[in-house]
């Protein structure tokens, strides 16, 4: 295993310490329990927005803490959802009396731990709501299964809900907005090479030089299928078709196109893929009104990409364009 680390068992805390000194004006970070909070939390009168999950997806979630996005992020161990006490600590840190909204990616561990934390916080008298995001179309949904995973759509959800909270929306409105976003965002990912989890030491899956994984998640779990390596044109077409036909997105729709790197895929390839995706959407009569291109929700150093589409309306566009100041996303301020 080749990584710039000291000890696999302290990677998350060691990394958080670096993040804390890198963004002293922006973040206030505690380590036991691990919570990345806005330096000025709690923001009086404002609903607190909290998300979190296993580490290894940076900049998600800690990189999205700040004005116009999250009030706090709760980083678990690598690929391990955080524990209820840490989540509860985050809730307390951001609670300004207006309630707290939890944005939870749909994984059994995340759902159960956030659920427990919410119960504990409610018992302490904090009003808590939870919205679960499950935008991964690679996983067939069903009430009998764990359901779809929360992936790329999470980044957009955090930005949009964060902006609405910043403008003063109350907990009910934010809860409704979050559910509306979840209902209109879809994603699909693929990988060329597996990541290596520090405490595991070997790649999460083994892939031949002429193979790729399609329908991959962000935890190094294998995808839905393993197929022969394809050209960028073929890869992006696979992803866009799967995403578009699922919601479905239709001719005339205005969308936000998020072309995401899983970590190890460099910008030169990502822009290339993004261009192909815009062409495919144009040919379907879908208007790309906003874009995000870069490594925003990753799986350690995994080589691969994902495509996320969000159907936009005027309100969502305003919320997307609203000022944001976080370590990973910043504009308008």
């Amino acid at each position, binding site marked *: 295993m080749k990584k710039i680390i000291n000890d696999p068992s302290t990677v998350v805390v060691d990394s958080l310490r670096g993040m804390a000194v890198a963004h002293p004006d922006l973040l206030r970070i505690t380590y036991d329990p691990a919570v990345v909070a806005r330096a000025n939390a709690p923001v009086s009168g404002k609903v607190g927005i909290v998300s979190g999950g*296993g580490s290894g997806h940076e900049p998600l979630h800690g990189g999205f803490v700040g004005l116009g996005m999250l009030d706090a992020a709760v980083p*678990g*161990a*690598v*690929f*391990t*959802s*955080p*524990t*209820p*006490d840490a989540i509860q600590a985050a809730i307390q840190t951001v609670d300004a009396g207006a309630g707290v909204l939890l944005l939870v990616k749909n*994984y*059994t*561990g995340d759902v*159960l*731990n956030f*659920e*427990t934390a919410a119960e504990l916080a409610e018992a302490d008298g904090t009003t808590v709501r939870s919205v679960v995001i499950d935008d991964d179309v*690679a*996983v*067939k949904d069903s009430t*009998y*299964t*764990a359901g779809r*995973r929360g992936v790329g759509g999470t980044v957009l959800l955090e930005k949009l809900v964060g902006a609405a909270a910043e403008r003063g929306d109350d907990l009910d409105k934010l809860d409704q907005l979050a559910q509306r976003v979840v209902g209109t965002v879809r994603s699909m990912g693929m990988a060329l090479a597996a990541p290596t*989890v520090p*405490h*595991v030491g*070997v790649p*999460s*899956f083994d892939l031949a030089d002429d193979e790729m994984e399609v329908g991959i*998640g962000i*935890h*190094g*779990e*294998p995808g*839905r*299928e393993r197929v022969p390596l394809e050209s960028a044109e073929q890869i992006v077409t696979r992803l866009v078709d799967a995403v578009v036909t699922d919601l479905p997105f239709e001719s005339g729709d205005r969308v936000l196109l998020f072309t995401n790197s899983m970590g190890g895929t460099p910008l030169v390839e990502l822009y290339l893929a993004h261009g192909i995706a815009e062409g495919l959407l144009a040919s379907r009569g879908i208007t790309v009104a906003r874009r995000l291109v870069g490594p925003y929700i990753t799986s350690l150093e995994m080589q691969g990409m994902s495509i996320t589409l969000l159907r936009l309306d005027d309100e969502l566009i305003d919320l997307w364009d609203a000022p944001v100041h976080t370590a990973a996303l910043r504009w308008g301020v």
Partner: protein
Amino acid sequence: MGCGTEGVIAALTAAADVVSAHRDELVELDRVIGDGDHGENLRRGFQTFVVAVTRAAPATPGAVVKLLASTLISTVGGAAGPLYGTACLRAAASIGDAPELTPTATVTALRAALSGVVARGKAEPGDKTMVDALTPAVEAAQKALENGADIHGVLVAAADAADDGAAATIPLVARKGRASYLGERSAGHLDPGARSTALLLRALAESA
């Protein structure tokens, strides 16, 4: 002949050692159809418990199991943390503040643990989860009890059934947990949580 506080602490400490000894095996099982953290997370949780139990020195078997529950919930994370944590929470509640565990109380505690896992995780037998090890374990323990077995006998029956139940997850296609994302590709692999459940019951049986 029942089992007092000391005995329960000894049994759970033995279980902690077994988890550490099988840490890599559980990581590897989870790497193949999950995200590779099951062994590391359980090891961290049980080792924290070993330290905590000596410091806190709980007075009753129920208090010991309750301490294990809160420790697992606050240190394991992932799916297994809340699931095993809730299992222990329910087990502790069923034990109450009795000074000793009887064979009957042991079976009742196992049943409570299973109800906790199912209440949290909503998994049914055949979903390829720890439920596939715990469900037959509870039934076997019950049968052993009816045949007059002592605590050791009850737990051995549970452990044997859990081993079979875990092995039976291999051909299954996962419907719950991370392995479910693999769809058909999850078949042919042993479920890590079912394996850890079997390992834990075996450790308890051997030290009872």
